[in-house]
């Protein structure tokens, strides 16, 4: 049966921890710190707007680029938030989450053999979509520098075939983010070496210690950057699947071409809900961000007290925790913890080879769950010492 499949898909590496995921999914009564989505339900006004649009009979396709009203709202939103000017007519595309935007971006930019720089640990899709597009992911290991990308690290990986870089901050899985000054230095290297920047800033509203700087706001960066963002994390709307891409007209046009043949348009219900999220969601976003920030204090303190060290995350809702002192690999640690205490975490190796020795813990979970998980992990660690 195998030979019916395309060579490309067969060659695409399945995630090394797929079996571990299946193990978790098959188990009941698990306390999960393994989830990559908010534990809040979408704010009611947003859900209500979706329901209302259905009652009004708004069930058709929308324009390929997405509802004009939504594109206009996004344009105004970015103007207000980052003082960015993106034209709703031709510089914004509504996509099925950031995932689709990322796939379209890479497919629009990459020729076979082109190299794409991917700082690791990274979100799992970046290498996969690059390979599917015929490109070559070039990994930049950031583990020696507290998981922070630097201009030097970039320079070391540049050659004539490197075309673009995919940035993601605040970062999944490490929670690392960057100050404006740090980003400016990175931007200078990109501009100097004509490296195009795809920036995934979907966690930006969950930035805790300093103001989030959007990459296209840096000097000279806007023309050289594709900005990806979405509603999933900020507005707790993962299941609605709405994201958007903003960038130079020719790139948005190219992406729209693929999008119109493959997706047609994003679900209209979700688009109406997204309009409402931009209209009335700010206070919910702030409330949720405050809640995550408090949980961050709880879990950061909790894990360090247990002797499992990590850096204080600057954003998102993840801790990337070293388990090296237990003598176990990421996968062994995760499996044993699951078996003995029914606590699920994600092995760091899911996010690139340099994640070995780490686990990703998500604090998008209630206080009670987090406290109980910490209690169980303490038992687990004691049983091993």
């Amino acid at each position, binding site marked *: 049966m195998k030979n019916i499949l395309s060579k490309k898909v067969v060659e695409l590496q399945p995630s090394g921890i797929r079996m571990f995921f299946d193990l978790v999914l098959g188990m009941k009564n698990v306390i999960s710190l393994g989830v*990559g989505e908010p*534990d809040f339900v979408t704010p009611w006004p947003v859900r209500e707007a979706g329901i209302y649009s259905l009652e009004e009979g708004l069930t058709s396709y929308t324009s390929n680029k997405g509802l004009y009203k939504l594109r206009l709202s996004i344009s105004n939103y970015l103007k207000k938030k980052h003082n960015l000017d993106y034209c709703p007519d031709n510089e914004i595309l509504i996509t099925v989450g950031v995932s689709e935007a990322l796939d379209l971006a890479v497919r629009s930019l990459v020729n076979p053999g082109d190299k794409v720089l991917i700082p690791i640990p990274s*979100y799992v*899709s970046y290498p996969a979509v690059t390979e599917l597009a015929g490109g070559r992911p070039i990994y930049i290991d950031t583990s020696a520098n507290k998981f922070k990308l630097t201009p030097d690290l970039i320079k070391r990986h540049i050659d004539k075939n490197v075309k673009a870089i995919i940035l993601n901050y605040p970062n999944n899985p490490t929670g690392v983010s960057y100050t404006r000054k740090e980003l400016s230095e990175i931007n200078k290297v990109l501009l100097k070496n004509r490296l195009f920047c795809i920036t995934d800033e979907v966690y930006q509203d969950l930035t805790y210690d300093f103001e989030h700087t959007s990459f296209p706001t840096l000097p000279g960066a806007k023309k050289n950057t594709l900005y990806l963002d979405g509603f999933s994390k900020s507005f707790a709307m993962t299941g609605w699947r709405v994201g958007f891409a903003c960038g130079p007209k020719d790139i948005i046009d190219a992406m729209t071409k693929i999008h119109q043949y493959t997706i047609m348009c994003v679900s209209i219900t979700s688009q109406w809900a997204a309009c409402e999220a931009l209209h009335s969601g700010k206070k919910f976003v702030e409330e949720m961000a405050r809640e995550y920030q*408090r*949980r961050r204090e709880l879990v950061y303190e909790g894990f360090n007290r247990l002797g499992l060290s990590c850096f204080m995350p600057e954003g998102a809702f993840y801790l990337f925790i070293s388990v090296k002192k237990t003598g176990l690999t990421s996968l062994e640690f995760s499996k044993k913890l699951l078996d003995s205490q029914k606590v699920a975490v994600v092995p760091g190796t899911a996010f690139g080879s340099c994640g070995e020795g780490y686990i990703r813990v998500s604090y998008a979970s209630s206080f009670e769950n987090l406290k109980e998980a910490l209690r169980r992990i303490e038992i687990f660690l004691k049983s091993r010492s």
Partner: protein
Amino acid sequence: MDEILEILEKDGRTTAEEIAKLTKRSVGQVKTAIRKYEKEGVIVKYKAVLNKDLVHTDDAGVRALIEVNIMPQKDVGFENVAQRIYQFPEVSNCYLISGTYDLLLLVEGKSLHTVSNFVAEKLSPMPNVRGVVTHFMLKKYKEDGVILRHKEDHERINISY
């Protein structure tokens, strides 16, 4: 609003130690702040929110919202009459409101009978009470910001990237 209040309003059982962790303050600071709030009456009391529909006994009780029309008194307006009414232990909430009537009461009793006795024997005969409309509550959907519904647990998948 102070974060301490925000946390306690959500869960009154959060300990000072936990609040200290969550807000990056010292335990001492948190305890002092809470004592101050309690003393000033900002924090009135700590209680559990019950869904009495799920209490399977006969004494779950009866509740009624009662609209009261009163004749205000010279110099003191509604205050004295309101005071005479809200002192009754049956009255758990009492508000002066705008509109077609003056006071809105939440009255709780063991049975229909106790509530109607209160209305007929205590409330209605009061000298400044001009009229009373009693609404017995049939079902509680939401209280103190909590939706009281026995919900199926939403199965958020246990692990994802």
